[in-house]
């Protein structure tokens, strides 16, 4: 597994376009983010937020433009990025019939992570007592906590978080914050529908509408009203 390139932007997208058949999901998006910073992506449903995350995760290719993550061009060296990215999406990426511990062991083996790390994370999110329960028996909030463990198991340099606290109550959100919040020190890309909460997390704000970047500015220069305009019908 190749290391991130020192001094390079954590994310560098230039004129990125991605289509699904005839439909353009992202069009001509350009954005750069320094290591350790947080980009929050706003936009209504279908704006292209999840597509952007999947491109950064190397799960989707760009059709036009160039995309670099951690200093590696995704088209040419996408394999170098895998293992440095943690993805927490709407889907927890956990097998429903396996227990939390079995799921995490599977991911730990894929990422060559010591199994002791699993117990450390289970303690951190308060799931040790439920670790031997099958995922399909858990509430959505508990599944989301397990998914957080899965996303940070390999200590990724870049976290891609698709509405990460959507299923969490305030107490659970506080529990996972040291792992996926600003205090984690990781570069983060977060999608959000919460203007105030999102801006509080952001160093840089990106607003997408119909796949186009309608807004890109430092979070300090963005107001909740500007975010609200993205959602205007």
């Amino acid at each position, binding site marked *: *597994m190749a290391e991130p390139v020192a001094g390079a932007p954590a994310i560098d997208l230039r004129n990125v376009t991605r289509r699904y058949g005839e439909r353009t999901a992202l069009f001509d998006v350009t954005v750069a983010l320094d290591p350790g910073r947080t980009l929050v992506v706003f936009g209504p449903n279908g704006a292209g937020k999840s597509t952007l995350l999947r491109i950064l*995760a*190397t*799960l*989707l*290719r760009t059709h036009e433009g160039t995309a670099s993550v951690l200093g590696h061009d995704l088209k040419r060296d996408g*394999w170098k990025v*895998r*293992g440095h*990215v943690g*993805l927490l999406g709407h*889907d*927890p*990426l*956990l*097998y*429903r*019939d*396996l227990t939390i511990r*079995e799921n995490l062991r*599977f*991911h730990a*083996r*894929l*990422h*060559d992570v010591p199994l002791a790390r699993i117990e450390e994370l289970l303690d951190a999110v308060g799931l040790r007592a439920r670790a031997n329960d*099958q995922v399909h028996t858990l509430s959505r909030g508990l599944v989301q906590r397990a998914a957080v463990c*899965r996303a940070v198991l390999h200590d990724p340099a870049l976290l891609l978080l698709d509405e990460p606290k959507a299923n969490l109550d305030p107490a659970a959100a506080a529990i996972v914050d040291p792992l996926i919040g600003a205090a984690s020190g990781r570069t983060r890309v977060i999608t959000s529908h919460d203007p105030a909460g999102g801006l509080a997390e952001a160093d840089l704000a990106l607003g997408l509408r119909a796949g186009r970047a309608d807004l890109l500015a430092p979070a300090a220069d963005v107001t909740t009203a500007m975010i609200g305009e993205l959602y205007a019908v």
Partner: protein
Amino acid sequence: MRRAVSALLRKEASLELRTPQVIPAMALFSLVTYVVFHFGLRRNELEGDLAAGVLWATILFAAMLGVGRLFVTDREEGGFDAFLLAPVDRTSLFVAKALSMLAFLALVQVVAIPAFFVLLLGPGLSAAHTLDLILVLALADLGIAIVGTLVGALAVQTRARDLITPLLALPLLVPVIIGAARASSPLLAEHATALPAKWLAVLGLYDLVFGLLAYGLFDFLVED
């Protein structure tokens, strides 16, 4: 690659042990098919070419059930994406799935082959010919597992995967059926004769060619 294959195999075994789906379905399908052949052919006992044909048609159609389910859990529960995010050789998924399919076929045949002997096969099988038949089964199962894994990975990415799987796999597996039926027919005859080496070689060559093809193509199948 070994680490990833081992992780994937453990996961497959855990899932199948926790909620058995594929193996019971394939075994039950095989038994029901023997009954269908029994009544359809109006024969109590089969031998030679007919016995080999019934045996291999049953194995092939039962295998389609396994191929159809091979990647479904991974696709529906996000395991596919999780694997693609890991820093591992993507061919390890092919190797693990093909080995899983091979294990499914072997376990099903532990039930289905004795059942075939009891329910349909007329002449008995000597110990030496039983070993020969196991060799034919091993080579044919390997071919089915390789092509099944390739087709399963392709089909699971389409909406009509249940239709695509047999439509793609069955034509590709015709050489396996021909080779396996021709190789096993003399073993299942009233007066059994030696295993024809030519058909064993055909099966071996098929496994080699499709194994290399699958190894080269699999990356492109799982990539966006």
